[in-house]
């Protein structure tokens, strides 16, 4: 289904919006991304992902009143929608399902052994 696909970075943002509830907005989402995943991203990249997620209907937002700390400007607080939750869950289920299908043998992989046999 094109348009409602959840990209890897988008999924990360979506999860972090959930983690930060009820105070998830651009700047602190970025900080949390850096702290939790160690990925250094620009504020613009976060805003870009947020706006895509909102377009897809995975997030909803409302404007909160401005504070002195922000030079009197308002901030946009994000929240996961039901569709958003569904999307993360689908991703998670798929992953868990695939994980459980991997046989133990694959982990003690022995490419060396195979080649030695040749």
């Amino acid at each position, binding site marked *: 289904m094109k348009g409602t696909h959840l990209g890897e970075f988008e999924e990360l943002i979506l999860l972090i919006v959930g983690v930060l509830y009820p105070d998830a907005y*651009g700047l602190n989402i970025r900080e949390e991304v850096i702290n939790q995943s160690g990925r250094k991203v*620009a*504020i*613009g990249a976060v*805003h870009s992902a947020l706006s895509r997620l909102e377009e897809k209907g995975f997030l909803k937002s409302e404007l909160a009143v401005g504070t002195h700390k922000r030079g009197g400007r308002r901030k946009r607080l994000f929240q996961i929608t039901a569709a958003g939750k569904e999307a993360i869950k689908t991703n998670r289920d798929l992953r868990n399902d695939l994980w459980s299908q991997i046989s133990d043998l694959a982990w003690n992989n022995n490419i060396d052994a195979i080649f030695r046999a040749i």
Partner: protein
Amino acid sequence: MPSSEPYNPPKLAERFLRTFCRKELQDEVLGDLYEHYQELRIGNAKWRADMKYWYHVFHFLRPFAFNKKYNSNLMVMYNNYLKFAWRIITKHKAISLMNIVSLSIGFACFIFISIYVNHELSYDQFHDRSENIKRIAIDFMDEKGNRTPDATTPPALAPALINSFEEVGSSVRFMPNWGNKYLLGTSDDKRFFEEELIRTDSTFFDVFSFPFLYGSPNTALDQINSIVLTKRAALKHFGKMEVIGEEITLFRTDDNSTYVVTGVLENIPENSHFTFDYLTRLTFENIDQNWGWFNFYTYVKMNPLSDEVVFENKLQPFYEKQSEGAEYFNMIYSQPLTDIHLKSKLKWELGVNGDMTNIYIFSALGIFVLLISCLNYLNLTIAQSFARFKEVGVRKTFGAHQNTLAGQFVFETILITIFALIAGVAMAQLLFMNLESLIGFEVKLYEPQHLNTLFPAMISALFIGILSGVYPAVHFASFKVATAVKGVINSKGKSLVSMRKVLLAIQFALSAIMICGSLVVYEQLNHLNTKNKGLSTDQVLVLENANKLPNQATLKSELESLNAVSEVGFANGIVGGTNWTTGLGYPDEILMNYIVIDDGLLKTLNLELLAGRNFDKERKSDYEGLKIIVNETGLEQMGYTLSDIGLELPFTVQNDTIVNGTIVGVVKDFHFTNYKSKIQPYAFLARDNALPYAHIKLSTNDLAHSISELETTWNELTGGLPMEYYFLDETFNSLHLEQVKLSKILLYLTTLSILIAFIGMYAIANITIKDQLKEIALRKVLGGSVISVSQRVINKFLVIVLIANIIGLPIAYVLTSSWLNEFAYRITVGIGIFFLAISSTMLVAWLTVGYQSFRAAITNPAKVLKQD
């Protein structure tokens, strides 16, 4: 929060964001950025916080944030611009190509020069706190107050400095190999002769910070038997890099010593003024009190806030206290580490140093060529857009604003300059690949560290792009639409034409200067190389370790019996490579350079005996006492003449008694140092010892065969000792490497700048002749001959070139003369060089314009006149 007052983010960045960002997004984005900026300011300097703020603003240049309406309009407009730009480029293919090529040549030269110059300026700056590191040098003084600059110092200096000066944070001394070779290896059958071995103190890494791959700088040299290798050395001996704890043996004739590897370094960077592959501890006894053994180099790292002037002033008194009672004192002083490569010209430097004069010359050249090509571009573009007045007239009729017109022109020109920049970077890469062996380091322009150097080129690309776009746009703004569409050139058009001539003249003046410059440099080098060298180093191969053989006479006769060998001579050093000196002369001592040789060396090096004789194997007395062969300068400075040859003469004073010697022969003066300095006194002595350097003059050009013959003989005689050899030319070339670099790079740049001027002339002539086609046709109809008609056009251009030469040549004379003044032996700048510069530029102009005007003149006038 340390401060209650909020910081204001950069206004310009905010305004910039507002210009493109969607209205409904602005508030939250600016809010986030504002909040972020407050945090940035707490941990960072203002400029850094501002930079980061800008960084984030630029990251909002993404489709999602764009103002949709504004965006689509913009796209349509730029699409239109792009279409027109493409049409113009393809309509005048030849001129567009010339435009791009000439501009990219300029960029290429500029990028090449700036990277080269930056590399030269970057020497030794990779060390931590490099600005605080100094080398201490001691110049020798004699009783008459003559000063011989010298980089070496005694071993007692380094420990004394750290004990006596609170300014000195750490000090280190080291001793290079002094021409010795060390047989190093892991086993008897895997060992090599190595010369890049330095012996030093455990404090080496307190002063220098060569990066470690394995091991720690704090403990690497703690043990007396530790050795630190470079990556290259580790790979050579062990085939891997992680070799901490491995053992490596130094093989000596009497006993071997084994070292344990305690550190592996990155290879020593090309921009270090000294190099090494092996680092071990000094093991001499009682050297901490030795003030007389000048075999060491001393470096100190000053404490961060210490006063350098105070330190410098205290050095001499401190040194004189150590050598109390002496009648005259040597001069001690410090040199900043980062200045050594370009500014230090002492005796016994650790490597081949650069030359600050060349850095200035190269920088000027780089800017020159860029300037020539930018002027050229400006000239062509303005001339070309001037021919577009009809298009402008139509655009204006349809309501084009002055700003949009300027926007269009600027867009086009910037597009072309960007093309040219890309082509220029590729061309610069080609230049680097061609000149890699000359400049001595490899450059890959796509690596990120070169971005800094590309930056000025980018700025100038943008600048001339904007300038050459805005100028015609402003010019067209004042056009009356009606006259423009009709195609009537108003009076302002004339001023444009004369500016064209001025720009052309400047280009040719700069080219004339460069032609003169490269001719002078070439002639000067040629003069020194061929007429004044005094000895021949061609096809002379130096074989090292010749003294490791039991019998030197056997080696000599074996070598002489080979077909490929014409002469063999032995010495304990290399003329041009070794710097041994001694005081000689009575009553006044002079500084005499010397080496010890056998009876074959003079002939091998083709040194011409003016009087007297060579050393003679049959006369045992030649090999004892002070029997010397001296050069002309040496003879003169010792105060003797040719008639004193063979006499017993007072040479020097030792323990209050006069020591006599004999001048056996006198050789013609020869160059053994940098060409810039005067020829110094030089003496040859003979001794019966085994001498380490065998000089072999080869008689054939078949080098590969000759060397394999030599190798066979060597292996037979030595039983498998590695053969180490090089050509004497290499040593001599390194003496004047800087001049060779200058002449080669100058040649490249001059050729390229002439090419640019050529292209510029061609294109301008092309445009001018197009304007004059009607005039030419009319003249022919009225009876003008092809020759007289085309001559009229050519003459106009020749006058410009002549004026350019009249302006350029005096400047060239002043510049080249001041360059030549640095040489002890110099050519005089003759009229011939100027004549060559004038005639070559005139010829270029005559050919380019002549061809086109001739072609215009032979076309049928009817064809031209029937148009419109």
